[in-house]
């Protein structure tokens, strides 16, 4: 379906053309996510550049299409700003969530969010619910747990459970200490996810993961792994920057589409149990 893209539609319309030399940002409700152009992508949620990007607010819907379904509304809305530089774009996602959940424990689910774009920006759109066969979507997924690791939290049991006692791990046996290759081999023997290169297992250098999907349940590693993320919790909620390259086939005159999802860890939201949007127009400032 050819989709006519709407440009900036404001109830009050203060139009910006260049970040950094313009007056205060618009405060009215937008209908599109509108990217403003900057020289450099902001990496930090508190970067002043965000003040120059219009804020788009959208309600979130429970994921009620596939089991397990989210039946209750948790996060009600998300606020989004977008800044592009060259062939990359950064989004700042903000939502209310007073509890900070960044532990990866047995019963703990981390707060998380994701952005989704069509793998190819073309008029025919994939299904908004994680794409469809033959029409993939690209997803960048951020979690508070990975952010905490990137910010310096250790990855041992005692970093999660300071009172834990561990007798011995086989890979730490004295004879292996002088042979890192043998030590690694023994470690991988007890950690097949590591051995198979599952991103969930780390090592973690970024707080985001690049994924591709062709429908619910098909999420897998994306073709590129260059997205970046940075999240901050301010006591009332999260402010998370996710940056990535613009989708293949991006045409600034035509724009594309974007969708968002948010998970609240304290409500045991994970995987399909999430709040999400449908497709939303993603446009570049005129």
């Amino acid at each position: 379906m050819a989709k006519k893209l709407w440009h900036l539609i404001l109830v009050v319309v203060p139009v910006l053309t260049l970040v950094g030399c313009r007056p205060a940002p618009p405060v009215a409700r937008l209908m599109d996510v509108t990217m403003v152009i900057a020289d450099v992508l902001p990496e930090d949620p508190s970067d002043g550049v965000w003040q120059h990007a219009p804020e788009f607010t959208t309600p979130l819907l429970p994921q009620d299409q596939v089991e397990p379904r989210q039946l209750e509304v948790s996060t009600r809305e998300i606020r989004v700003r977008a800044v592009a530089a060259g062939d990359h774009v950064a989004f700042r996602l903000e939502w209310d969530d007073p509890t900070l959940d960044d532990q990866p424990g047995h019963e703990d689910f981390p707060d998380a969010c994701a952005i989704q774009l069509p793998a190819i920006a073309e008029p025919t759109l994939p299904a908004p619910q994680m794409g469809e066969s033959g029409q993939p979507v690209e997803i960048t997924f951020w979690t508070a747990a990975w952010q905490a690791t990137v910010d310096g939290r250790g990855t041992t049991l005692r970093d999660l459970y300071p009172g834990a006692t561990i007798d011995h791990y086989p890979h730490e046996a004295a004879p292996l200490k002088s042979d890192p290759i043998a030590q690694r081999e023994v470690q991988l023997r007890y950690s097949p996810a590591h051995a198979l290169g599952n991103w969930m297992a780390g090592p973690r250098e970024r707080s985001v993961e690049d994924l591709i999907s062709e429908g619910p349940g098909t999420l897998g590693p994306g073709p590129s792994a260059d997205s970046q993320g940075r999240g901050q919790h301010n006591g009332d909620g999260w402010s998370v920057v996710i940056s990535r390259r613009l989708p293949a086939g991006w045409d600034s005159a035509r724009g594309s589409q974007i969708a968002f999802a948010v998970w609240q860890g304290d409500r045991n939201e994970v995987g399909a149990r999430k709040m999400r949007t449908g497709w939303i127009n993603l446009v570049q400032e005129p």
Partner: protein
Amino acid sequence: MARVYNWQIGRDMSYWYPESRPEKQFAAVFDINKCIACQSCTLACKTTWTSGKGQEYQLWNNVESKPYGFYPLRWDLKLLDMLGEQQWDGDQYRGQTIFEAAEAGERVLGWRPEERDFAYPNVGEDDCAGTIETGADFQIPHLAWFFYLARICNHCTYPACLASCPRGSIYKRPEDGIVLVDQQRCRGYRECVKACPYKKVFHNPLVGTSEKCIACFPKGENGLQPQCFVNCIGKIRMAGSISRPEDAKPENPIDYLVHIRKVALPLFPQLGLEANVYYIPPIHAPTPFLYQMFGPGVAAAIKTYRSAVDDMDLAGLLTLFGSSERVMPRWKREGDWTIGLDEQDQEIVRVPLKEPVYLRGPFDEKYQVARTNCP
């Protein structure tokens, strides 16, 4: 939901996927009456598979004392409570399985244990039912009871873990029916931890995926029984494969015990998973308790087991338990000997029905010494 046939409840039931039975189904029989809760099995598994980071609390094999022992805490009681009172009608289960009782928006009726539920692997150990009055230990039979329940993953025909995973990260191997979590695909959603009624999938918080018993498949592929079986001091376990009831073969030891003699029963068949670890129920625990745990066949199973003393085939087959590391897909009895055979009917092991008895008096005439060291 598809309609599938579950012979353990004697009827069709709803399941997330259509019926698709493997070429062979891994199965096992545990004789509860012989378990001494030494936890050799637990340690055998622990040292073989779960000594890595984040696996500290994982017990793919555990042994708990019933009625008060659990790992994790109240794993069975909690789900039975959620399911509510249900009925058997003879051999047919009239109640709801956990697939049929799933709440709106869910695939399976389940619950996720809290961390502290895994903190006491031995809670209830050796606690018996009821209180003991003074002098009760002089009464025979004892009025109080408990028994040891050794548990691994049941490699179910209709696994709840597999049904619950929205990513299809859990699969059942077509060649042997072993249920595995794909460690490349798992994203740690823990739907399987919530769904498995036996609580035999464990989340690894340091790795971010969920992990479970693999039925020691690298051993099975080489014709060997799993680690927790061959290290069992009480020789309570036998691994093999099970046929559908209508295809039962008397020469297959598992088929013989489960389908032909009906002396070994699945754990909580009413949950609807067609679990493939079968238990010879403890003969001294109250039947109503066992009925809830092993289904309507329990009284007959105990009767059959008690008759083994006069039943050379049944007693003979039970002597094969723990007699070889190799899987014995076939067996036969020849007089006072039971023989474990491979697929080609070649002998693997030969065990006497009766151990020879040697009487050794307290005094050795030949050496003129006392054989005991106490006067």
